[in-house]
């Protein structure tokens, strides 16, 4: 847990101030130094254009983290609204939304993201949108079931019988009481979102080279795996480490909130 926390802190530092972590530029090419193995000067080695892999991994953190956090926040809010609607709306809305969620749930998340990209087109800005849309059903379903449970409690009935406006009931009583599990889900969801986003750019559907993005770097490094493993392995390790760090910290928060509830 502590190790994951430190790692996460480093990852955030790399995202916010990459220049503090590495002095090298992620874009500067040097044909003379192409595909150098890891050494003192280039600790992760250099790629086919002689760019410093470490610098590119560090600068790539910002993009991955931004997509992960942004897409998760988007999915959380949209899922919350959908879930509330599915639990509290009139029967026809309730039925329609629940079936919609069921249909979306039946597709693997990645496939759903691919579908969205296919519809809205490739590009840097569409990746978070696709990842968010793919993650919405999971949040919506949890939000719905939590809302159903909370809306049957005595304090919700009491608020309704006091004459509190329904919107105020939802805002003051329901949302604060269902948002806990969703936030915990989101901390773990950030990791998934990063993997999905990297996967999309690995397929060339996201930002284009030479942007320092982990998915692109993986896809470029794939061609040199036999001769220069470091070009592909280090961005891959970066994805793995980030996802594990975020998930571990997320699980910790979840166990804490479970202790608080019991």
């Amino acid at each position, binding site marked *: 847990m502590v190790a994951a926390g430190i790692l996460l802190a480093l990852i955030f530092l790399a995202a916010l101030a990459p220049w503090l972590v590495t002095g090298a530029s992620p874009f500067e090419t040097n044909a003379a130094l192409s595909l150098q193995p890891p050494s003192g000067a280039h600790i992760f080695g250099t790629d086919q254009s002689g760019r410093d892999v470490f610098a590119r991994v560090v600068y790539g953190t910002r993009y991955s983290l931004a997509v992960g956090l942004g897409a998760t926040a988007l999915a959380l809010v949209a899922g919350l609204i959908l879930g509330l609607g599915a639990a509290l709306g009139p029967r026809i809305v309730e039925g329609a939304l629940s079936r919609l969620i069921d249909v979306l749930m039946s597709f693997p998340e990645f496939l759903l993201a691919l579908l969205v990209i296919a519809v809205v087109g490739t590009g840097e800005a569409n990746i978070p949108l696709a990842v968010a849309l793919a993650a919405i059903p999971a949040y919506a379903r949890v939000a719905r079931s939590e809302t159903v449970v909370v809306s049957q*409690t*005595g*304090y919700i*009935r*009491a*608020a*309704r*019988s*006091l*004459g*509190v*406006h329904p919107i105020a009931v939802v805002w*003051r*009583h329901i949302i*604060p*009481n269902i948002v806990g599990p969703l936030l915990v889900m989101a901390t773990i969801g950030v990791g998934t979102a990063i993997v999905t986003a990297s996967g999309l750019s690995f397929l060339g559907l996201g930002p284009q080279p030479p942007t320092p993005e982990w998915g692109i770097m993986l896809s470029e490094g794939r061609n040199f795996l036999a001769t220069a493993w470091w070009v592909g392995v280090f961005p891959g390790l970066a994805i793995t480490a980030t996802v594990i760090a975020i998930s571990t910290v997320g699980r910790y928060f979840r166990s804490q909130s479970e202790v608080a509830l019991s």
Partner: protein
Amino acid sequence: MSSPRVEISHLSVTFPGASAPAVNDVSFHIDAGECLALVGESGSGKTLTALSLLGLVPPEAAVSVGTRVVAGVNTRGFTEAKWRALRGNRVGLVSQDALVSLDPLREIGSEVGEVLELSRPRLPRDVIAQRVLDALELAGVPQPHYRSRQYPHELSGGLRQRALIASAIAGQPEVLIADEPTTALDSITQAHIFDLLAALKESGLALLLVSHDLGLVRQLADRIAVMREGAILECAPAAELLEAPQHSYTRELLNAVVTRQPARGTHAALIEGPPALSCLGLHRSYPDREGGFVEALRGVSFSVRAGTTMGIVGESGSGKSTLARILMALEKPNSGVVELAGEPWSLAPERSRRSRRGEIQLIEQNPYDALDPRWSVGRILQEAVNLDSSPGPAWVRRARVAELLDQVGLSTQLIGRRAHQLSGGQRQRVAIARALARRPSVLICDEPVSALDASVRAQILALLHSLQKSLGLTLVLISHDLGIIAHSSDEVLVMRHGEVIESGLRESVLNHPVHPFTQELLAASKSL
């Protein structure tokens, strides 16, 4: 006389970090064919004492005991394996909540048979099946063949409790521990369960009855031990203890037993007033699993005069809570109308109804989910106070919150507390204060005290009473307990299977019941 079936001396149980032991130097014995009742409030250590007879005290607790003879066996130095052989086989346990004590995924028959399979592994299947049916029959489960193939959720509360008793007696134990065996049940079912326990006692079983309610145990117990804060205050033959209690706490508990004595005269003049709340021909049904309908209410009509109390009594499942929600306009009736102060209520559109919602308020059974767990007491009351048409400046509203707390007998020091930091009685008081914040004219109380301890019950009922007097409230009191209804109602309505089977002034319903079900209810509550 043979040696006692149970003998405990100097039993103490201490939890690590606790300042005082949870059970403190408790000694008692039970002979065969005898019933000892352990009585006390929740937290007095009575359940822990009972569990120690089964070696089921939580492992982190330190147990010290002089002698512990259970089912005639000295358990000194017992290993977990030996305890397992004892449990179910020679000592049966009937616990409080039959809904959570039965595995929802297993048929009743296999649940009851499990104890036999474990204790007598070589018994052939058909013998086990026969024993299971015998046990179910002995426990008073009708049609045991049919019931043994049902799942717990298909049974009513009373049948579940009987199935649980059947599983406890299937192994033909010599000692039976019944921990609050009837708390969740209505008075008729309670009486049946007590008859059953009495019959088992007659057959030579040693019975340990654990309850918070002195009124309940008196008909069954040969001796009663009163527990408080882990210690036995006094232990005496039942008649002696009830006639001449030695300890002041025992007297307090006895006073807390709600008697059927009327608390006040009927206000004949008030009964002539206009109806504060009335309903006509209420019907409500819910779809069930087989595609049919369950009729929760079948044509319920009554009216309540302003300033009086209407007591509604019925078994669990008679549609009482559905009625409460329809009266509150939280649910719509399929047909029929509710009028509040002579104006349409159930038929009014929600938009115009919302401003009038303060006039009618609800107190529910479960004080544990009545308060938003994230909110402090002050904020909960503040929310209700702010709904006033002219709430006034902040200091006026704060004063109103303090006034409300004072009205329900709570200290203003509780303002910063959250629900989980309050006791059940305190939570129910906060719920009442919140209802009063809107200055209602009608207060609907749906089983307001059934989740509370006996001594707290009397306090809450007295509070509702004095509030009615000082604020001129109209009360609709809903309960399965005729004692509570008889205690504080002007008029009584008896419900069964969603229908009103009898209604009238309290005196006439209680003294001259017409319907056989009312007579049965009365007989059941008199015997307690």
